[in-house]
């Protein structure tokens, strides 16, 4: 296996300093969080950064916090493993904990960060669909100040985001949610967490009363378009309707129509499209069958396929 070429490594102690280094050194550098995408790009894809700016020594860039208004802040350098085992996330958004648990092995998840997963902007990024259905926002900072974008605006294409080279993703913010919100994430991948998603589907759902009227629904898809995407036409099928299996099936058909998959080594576009239909329906039914609160991992697994 190829080795990295010699490089310069900087370890700034603040976001401003990190951003200023990139401004001063110019193109050809990379920020480094957990390195699980960056080192692979160096080893397998011939990337040779001139310099690397390690963000791990910047204070206050990791951790999960519930704010007074009920919103949840996940700082960018929080690891997937931290999200997976966080009591707060397991209680409020078990499907988000689950989507973090789907990323590689425990060894990978001890390094891989939420910020890196977003900044790398792979269409199959496992945490992206769950964050999209929670309508998460991306906080971005540089020496020049801070701005906040919706995650939908943040993703521009495969490997491409709204960030300028000197900008740093500092946090993901999940706005306050309905107390009855339930959700689901299905990563469809024959080798489960040790391979990338062929298709990823996340659901966030609020159902009301015995009749299960849908107060709101959000559906997001991974690995089937240039960026992780919301499936708004599929949402419209269910929104404000009484939730039924037939409607879940129809929403699946809509989602299959509106996604834009490609064929690659893992699967053909046609197969991905068909699986979007099946998995969207299944994820909706799984979500609708849940109560708010934590769900044990083993139980989730048994329910999956």
């Amino acid at each position, binding site marked *: 296996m190829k080795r*990295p070429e010699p490089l310069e490594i900087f370890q700034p102690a603040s976001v401003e300093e990190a951003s200023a280094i990139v401004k001063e050194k110019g193109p050809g550098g990379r920020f480094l969080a957990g390195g699980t995408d960056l080192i692979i790009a160096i080893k397998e894809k011939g990337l040779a950064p001139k310099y690397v700016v390690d963000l791990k020594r910047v204070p206050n860039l990791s951790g999960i916090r519930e704010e007074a208004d009920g919103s949840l802040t996940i700082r960018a350098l929080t690891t997937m493993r931290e999200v997976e085992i966080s009591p707060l996330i397991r209680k409020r958004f078990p499907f988000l904990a689950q989507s973090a648990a789907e990323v590689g092995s*425990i*060894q990978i998840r001890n390094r891989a960060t939420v910020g890196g997963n977003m900044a790398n902007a792979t269409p199959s990024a496992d945490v992206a669909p769950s964050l999209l259905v929670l309508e998460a926002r991306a906080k971005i900072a540089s020496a020049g100040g801070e701005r906040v974008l919706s995650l939908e605006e943040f993703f521009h294409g495969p490997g491409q985001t709204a960030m300028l080279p000197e900008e740093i993703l500092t946090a993901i913010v999940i706005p306050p949610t309905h107390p009855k919100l339930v959700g689901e994430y299905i990563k469809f991948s024959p080798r489960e967490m040790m391979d990338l998603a062929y298709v990823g589907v996340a659901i966030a759902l609020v159902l009301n009363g015995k009749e299960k009227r849908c107060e709101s629904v959000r559906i997001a898809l991974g690995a089937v378009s240039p960026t992780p995407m919301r499936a708004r036409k599929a949402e419209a099928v269910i929104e404000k309707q009484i939730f039924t299996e037939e409607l879940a099936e129809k929403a699946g058909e809509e989602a299959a129509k509106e996604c834009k998959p490609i064929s690659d080594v893992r699967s053909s576009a046609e197969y991905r499209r068909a699986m979007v239909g099946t998995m969207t329906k299944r994820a909706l039914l799984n979500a609708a069958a849940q109560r708010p609160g934590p769900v044990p991992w083993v139980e989730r697994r048994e329910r999956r396929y």
Partner: protein
Amino acid sequence: MMMKIRITLNGKSISLEVPAHRLLLDLLRDEIGLTGTKEGCGTGDCGACTVFLNGKPVNSCLILSGELDGAEIVTIEGLKIGPELHPIQKAFIQDGGVQCGYCTSGMLMMSKALLDENLNPTEEEIRFALSGNLCRCTGYAKIVQAVQDAAAELRRMRAEG
């Protein structure tokens, strides 16, 4: 770029001058001479290179030396308790959890990480914890058995204080 770093390796504090781009895996094997840690894939898929970094199991093939100043690292060479093999090592030997041995140090480190958190894991939990460690010889059944036996022995040792 050369960098001065200070790390704690298997309980001993050491200072080193290393190229920032050197992988932790290569630092351990080629510069320090601890060859128990193996390279299988080099891409985070096989777990043969697993070591503990600041108390957590990670893939040493994906970490640069330049990231390591102040780090605490434990490798397979640090698993023994004094002169004695660790109960996990003994169980792998006793149960035939080792064949060619290439995956073994990674398997042992990951099993240690699991048992540090959970002394009573189910088979499902063992397989989940070891899903980033590939073995081409054993078929895994004996490895799972070894982890269960090690857990029982560690529970017994704990009960006896």
